[in-house]
């Protein structure tokens, strides 16, 4: 009796905590989405009415469209490069024993823990130094920005792909070789498909991380090469109206759709 009551309480507490966490996470998303339809320019509750004109404004402000394209471009290139390099690194870390393996692993994960502004400043100084020494201009160029984002995306790939590689039973690869597949065929037909879920998740998280990065990009973009988060920040500097909410809403939709599509191919809850 007492035991079952206690169990009941425990369950109730758990449900309450879960509910609160969800509220905490979803409230900003819901409010941003809601505000983007408010008709009044100065945000106040309750709204005077609803309108779509902020979305029109997003379209008219070419900075957003250009920032969007720029972010898309940077995120796409950085994801491809980051996932490729990160995957190779993961294979080395999981499959080979060499001195400094642990250190390499830590090093590749470290961008996750270094604050973006710190890393941005460091890269800024580094890029200037590279320019001085090699006459290779990285600061305020697309290459520089992409390289910085590659650094951001690698930890995600290393974490997710390493996890999926560790989960692969090596004897399955042995079986393929036993049946006549050479190393490359074994990788292509067996290893790769088995780590696909991890790769897809890695690509998704890399893309999102790059797409919404502000701190690092802020220090590295050049004139006329603004990413979407920076465009939003710059707009905010002189104007606060629901346009920002509308941009954010579009971005939430985009990332949400991306996750849903991905989830259809690999169950993200199982990979992450």
């Amino acid at each position, binding site marked *: 009796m007492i035991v079952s009551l206690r169990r009941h309480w425990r369950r109730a507490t758990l449900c309450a905590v879960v509910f609160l966490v969800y509220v905490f996470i979803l409230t900003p998303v819901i409010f941003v989405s809601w505000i983007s339809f408010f008709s009044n320019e100065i945000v106040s509750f309750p709204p005077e009415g609803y309108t779509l004109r902020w979305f029109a404004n997003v379209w008219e402000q070419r900075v957003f469209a250009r920032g969007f394209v720029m972010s898309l471009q940077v995120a796409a290139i950085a994801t491809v490069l980051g996932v490729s390099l990160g995957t190779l690194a993961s294979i080395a870390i999981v499959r080979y024993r060499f001195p400094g393996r642990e250190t390499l692993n830590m090093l590749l994960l470290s961008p996750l823990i270094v604050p973006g502004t710190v890393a941005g400043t460091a890269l800024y100084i580094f890029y200037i130094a590279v320019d001085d020494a090699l006459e290779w201009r990285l600061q305020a160029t697309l290459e520089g920005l992409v390289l910085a984002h590659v650094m951001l995306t690698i930890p995600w790939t290393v974490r997710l792909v390493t996890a999926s590689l560790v989960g692969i039973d090596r004897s399955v690869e042995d079986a393929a070789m036993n*049946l006549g597949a050479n190393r490359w065929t074994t990788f292509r037909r067996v290893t790769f498909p088995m780590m696909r879920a991890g790769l897809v998740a890695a690509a998704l998280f890399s893309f999102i991380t790059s797409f919404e990065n502000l701190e690092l990009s802020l220090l590295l973009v050049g004139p006329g090469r603004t990413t979407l988060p920076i465009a939003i920040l710059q707009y905010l500097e002189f104007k606060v109206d629901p346009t920002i909410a509308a941009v954010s809403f579009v971005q939430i939709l985009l990332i949400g759709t991306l996750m849903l599509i991905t989830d259809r191919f690999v169950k993200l809850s199982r990979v992450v």
Partner: protein
Amino acid sequence: MSQVSLRRLVKRFGAVKAVDDVTLDVREGELVALLGPSGCGKTTTLRMIAGFIAATEGQILIGDRDVTHLPPYRRNTGMVFQGYALFPHMTVAQNVAFGLEMRKVAKADIAPRVAEALRLVRLDGLGERMPRQLSGGQQQRVALARALVIRPEVFLLDEPLSNLDAKLRLSVRVEIRQLQQSLGLTTVFVTHDQEEALTLADRLVVMSQGSVQQIGTPEALYERPANHFVADFIGRSNFLEGRVTAPGMFRTRGGLDVAFADTGASPRDAGVLAIRPEKVQVGGEAGPNRFPGTIEFVTYLGAATELRVRLASGEAVAVTRPNDTPAGDGAVAARAAMPGQPVTVSWPPAAALLLAPPAA
């Protein structure tokens, strides 16, 4: 099918000698079981035959081809792995077809051969399933079909039954044996289960700490173990330590004078007598090797009863007696053994085997 020869095979992992000078010939169509306790080097030996582990020294021949330095995909062995190692992202049919695709078998021939292989392991109609949708026993059979469909020169199995429950293990064991015999497969089978090895194999290779202890038929190993390890590992034995006093006579530490079958090849000095518990009699008519003692312990084993008898010399001997008379029989009740009961045990000289003392 071809024969397999291992010539003085050695594998070192750093300082560990996992396989130590193994020489073995597996004849065409023969099933040889590698048997030994965990860590004795069975898997390492098998994986060297398959080509997953490079031999440190020695030679491996399949047929008359030296494959010692060939990668696994050039060796044409068919291996069944302990955990089956099915490709989780392929259907059953795709799993079985994989080896045929690698051999560039014409597309039109693949489907019939896959179907035939699945029929062979009684999985017809399950070709479109994914491995995870099958039971353990069915996955096991897919692994068999996948290894056999390529018509390998050698069939390799690493503890293929250890993940099955006891009932299934028995029936799959029979199936594997029938398949192996009907296809005439040259087979190397790894197991740590002596019963499995004894019932399945044409010949057994008993291994310990990387080296071969004895090679022989199940009967030879059981009846004529070459050393203390084999006598102890295959079946059960009573061991009496002591020394040879005269040809065919042995004095135990406790002072028993035991007659044994002297083969002339036996050690002359200190040694161990090995006596199977079922060859020891309780009571019995007059003859050599009769010793008084007291029943210390009785264990009912179903088909047999085991008695532990403490001899007057202080040594203990285990005796098994078949429970071959119906329960409730008066004669049985009369013979019923009770702890504390004085008895005489005896065994024929031929049942006592003289072996070298175990390595300390």
